[in-house]
């Protein structure tokens, strides 16, 4: 370790950095950061976990499922089934009235001070239920005026709703746009309900696409931030999504979130039942990378439920059931604005420190002629605080970074079953992990047992515990040097591209890890 690195790690690991909580967990993904962002826009996104990758480590969101009806049918959605153990869009365990939703927001906000955003994302389409959706916004803005409101829509009813959206100060809208070509669209949408009529096939897709793009234009004209979600369906719209990216960028969308299709047969969707596969992790990353030059890409989406509560990546909705909310006396709920503001101030302090850390990281590892070496993917087991601090067997998900000599860039989460508690036998769950990480050359852990280490190595994934309890990013940069050196000396054989890395989607259910030492 050279003097510069030594010095740097000392800064990172010093008491100051410890206090800073989830340090450089947040320098990844879509956070364009204040330097290259309009301050007005930054103000809107900085506390929104879905719009700012950085914010998602600090702030939580909740969805209130007040909108059960939908006006279109998508081939990846089956509205009939709801499983409480599933975590995916469109799924919801209980429906809420606007009144109960406002009460729930109050109860959650007083329990979880990091909760800054309330969204309406279903379980159907928010704008196919306009009265319920806007009544909910009205009630929430009365009881919790500091909370940001957002909604998610398929866009069919959007153009005429833009004024109302603006009236309720909703400044974030997500539109799901899977195509801009009806020929592609007819393979995704069997029908839509529009102007008192059911439309099918190409006509349906044409109307939907026109309405989506018109709605997008009207939103951006009103300076409402728009995130575009696209479901990547291999063989249907995967190549076409680049054209979608260009069209939405042209119309002023702020962020593009390309998500993998979820299509298990047991979900009973058309795609699930017809064997339409989802993309591999490599395919998803390749598409996201190829769109990145044109606009911000979201990489931290967990495809959460329409009634999710908590930080992205965890789901605490089971703690706030209708029965529990109904039992709460509203007078017992203390909406502690001071505590909420104190939390936000603390986060700002933490972020300031992180920015300094990020500046110090720049250029680290550029020595020794490493800058020409190809990038590698490395998985990290972490419980947060920006540290390699989780036992391999306790990890329920891994963070994956793309590492070059200059930069360790967060590119996504890989969810796995808990190896130590796998209900299918340990060998099976270990296989699932090697599949989920098969594009990575290494996994950094706090500790790993001999057996899994051997299995991982057989799968071409080095289990590295030499950086236990050190900061993730500097460790990755150092590891890059070691790895490249190993390849040059012939000690390490570079990995052939496999292209078959499986994606397991959805947020973890139950109380997940709280990665923040800034809490409390």
């Amino acid at each position, binding site marked *: 370790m050279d003097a510069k690195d030594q010095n740097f790690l000392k800064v990172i690991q010093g008491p100051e950095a410890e206090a800073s909580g989830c340090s450089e967990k947040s320098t990844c993904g879509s956070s364009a950061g204040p330097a290259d962002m309009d301050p007005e826009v930054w103000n809107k996104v900085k506390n929104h976990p879905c719009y700012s990758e950085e914010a998602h480590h600090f702030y939580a969101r909740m969805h209130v499922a007040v909108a059960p009806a*939908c006006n279109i049918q998508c081939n990846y959605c089956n509205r009939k089934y709801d499983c409480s153990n599933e975590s995916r869009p469109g799924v919801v365990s209980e429906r809420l009235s606007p009144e109960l939703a406002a009460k729930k927001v109050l109860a959650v906000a007083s329990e979880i001070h990091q909760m800054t955003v309330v969204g309406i994302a279903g379980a159907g389409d928010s704008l196919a239920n306009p009265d319920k959706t806007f009544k909910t916004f009205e009630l929430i803005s009365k009881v919790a005026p500091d909370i940001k409101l957002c909604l998610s829509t398929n866009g069919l009813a959007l153009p005429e709703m833009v004024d109302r959206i603006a009236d309720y100060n909703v400044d974030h809208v997500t539109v799901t746009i899977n195509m801009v070509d009806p020929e592609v669209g007819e393979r995704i949408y069997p029908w839509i309900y529009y102007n*008192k*009529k*059911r439309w099918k096939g190409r006509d349906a897709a044409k109307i939907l696409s026109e309405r989506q793009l018109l709605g997008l234009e009207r939103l951006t004209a009103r300076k409402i931030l728009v995130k575009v979600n696209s479901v990547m369906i291999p063989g249907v719209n995967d190549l076409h999504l680049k054209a979608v990216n260009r069209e939405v960028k042209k119309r002023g969308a702020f962020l593009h979130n390309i998500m993998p299709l979820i299509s298990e047969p047991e979900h009973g969707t058309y795609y699930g039942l017809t064997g339409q596969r989802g993309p591999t992790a490599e395919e998803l990353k390749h598409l996201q990378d190829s769109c990145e030059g044109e606009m911000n890409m979201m990489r931290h989406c967990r495809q959460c439920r329409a009634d999710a509560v908590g930080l992205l990546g965890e789901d605490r909705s089971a703690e706030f059931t209708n029965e529990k909310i109904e039992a709460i006396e509203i007078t017992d709920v203390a909406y502690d604005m001071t505590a909420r503001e104190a939390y936000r101030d603390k986060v700002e302090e933490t972020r300031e420190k992180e920015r300094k850390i990020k500046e110090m990281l720049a250029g680290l590892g550029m020595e020794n002629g490493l800058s020409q070496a190809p990038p590698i993917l490395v998985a990290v087991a972490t419980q947060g605080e920006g540290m390699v601090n989780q036992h391999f067997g306790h990890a329920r998900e891994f963070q994956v970074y793309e590492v070059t000599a200059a930069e360790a860039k967060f590119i996504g989460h890989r969810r796995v079953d808990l190896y130590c508690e796998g209900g299918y036998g340990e060998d099976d769950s270990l296989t699932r992990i090697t599949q989920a990480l098969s594009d990575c050359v290494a996994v950094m852990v706090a500790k790993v047992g001999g057996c899994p280490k051997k299995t991982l190595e057989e799968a071409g994934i080095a289990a590295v515990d030499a950086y236990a309890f050190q900061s993730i990013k500097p460790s990755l940069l150092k590891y890059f040097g070691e790895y490249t050196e190993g390849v040059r000396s012939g000690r390490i054989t570079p990995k052939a591209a496999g292209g078959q890395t499986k994606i397991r989607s959805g947020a973890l259910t139950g109380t997940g890890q709280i990665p923040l030492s800034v809490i409390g």
Partner: protein
Amino acid sequence: MAYTIVLDNCTGCSACEPECPNAAISGTDDGLFQIDPDLCTECVGFFDEAQCTAVCPIDDTCIPDRACVEDRETLMAKKVKLHGG
């Protein structure tokens, strides 16, 4: 013929309720929806197709009720009776 909702299929999503021009659709105690056959005109006189069927996300759920067959003239008369000319 009035329409009926197959309760085994209905998810209670409520999409049909506001679309019915006759306000014939109401909630059941179980959170699902039902059609009052005395008020259903199959949307005759209003729309080309039955709105509940057009908007329902589940196939074979809002369907013609074979126990309640009426011809188009009868349905039109029903519409006039309910709403006037």
